[in-house]
């Protein structure tokens, strides 16, 4: 209820409004090898979670876009070369959405 109200009042997405299980999110991101190219606040080959959160701030399709990005392995550019983005190592939508909520709340 509180989460739904927050979403209505502040216009934040479902992923951001739900409470994040930080430990589970960090565990899944680590298990999936995300931290090899991404970091919470520092630059690596991929954007930091903070940059991603800033990019999608206030966008209603943030969760959907990131869900697709993490589950379909789209092509991304690293050092000017195209490569396939790794797919998150989970088949559990709730678990994946929790990781997305973690990223968007950085």
């Amino acid at each position, binding site marked *: 209820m509180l989460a739904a109200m927050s979403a209505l009042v502040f216009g934040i997405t479902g992923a951001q409004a739900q409470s994040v299980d930080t430990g589970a999110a960090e565990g899944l991101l680590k298990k999936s090898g995300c*931290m*090899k*190219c991404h*970091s*919470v*606040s*520092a*630059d*690596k*080959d991929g954007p930091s979670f903070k940059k991603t959160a800033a990019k999608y701030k206030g966008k209603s399709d943030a969760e959907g876009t990131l869900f697709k990005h993490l589950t379909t392995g789209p092509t991304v550019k690293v*050092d000017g*070369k195209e*490569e396939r983005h790794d797919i998150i190592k989970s088949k559990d939508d709730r678990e994946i959405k929790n990781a997305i909520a973690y990223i968007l709340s950085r």
Partner: protein
Amino acid sequence: MGWWQNLRQRCQTCSRVTLGAGVFAAAMAVSFVLLTAGAYGLAVTSTEEFCIGCHEMRENVYAEYKGTIHDKNRVGVRATCPSCHVPHEPVALVIRKMQASFEVWGHLTGKIDTKEKFEKHRYEMAVKEWTRMKKNGSQECRNCHHFEAMEAEKQSEKAQARHAKAKAEGTACIDCHFGIAHKEPDGPGPRELKIAK
């Protein structure tokens, strides 16, 4: 040499040779004791037990390190605190130990003796260590991980490409592999630090 004259006057029955041999033996004994004590001190302060002797390390960075790949893994080889944070080369080792002796002052004055204080100083401490590891080309990583011994074909394509680039550009391991044993601090990472090598 006043001390020599003084010694000869005190022991007038001793010959020069006997007195000289005595002085030499005493100097050797003192040197032996000092060297042994120094080596013992260096060895003892370079152990995991010593590092986690204070709660600042034990309850923060050590707790975070537990369970990571460097603590527990399939083959049971561990990289403990000194493996990564204490140089193995003699000169670098002594310099780092001298720097560390100033850190004892921080312990005595309680600079990071609570979780809040530790978090407040986490980034500055990380930057210090990243800076050291960038300047020495991440020597402590390379004591175990040798580019030359890596079988690239056993790495993922992405890892191969990243490592080839790092080797060509002389990038330090820490530029990419940070926050792997401890919580990542909030702020720009090693790559963003402009440090002259």
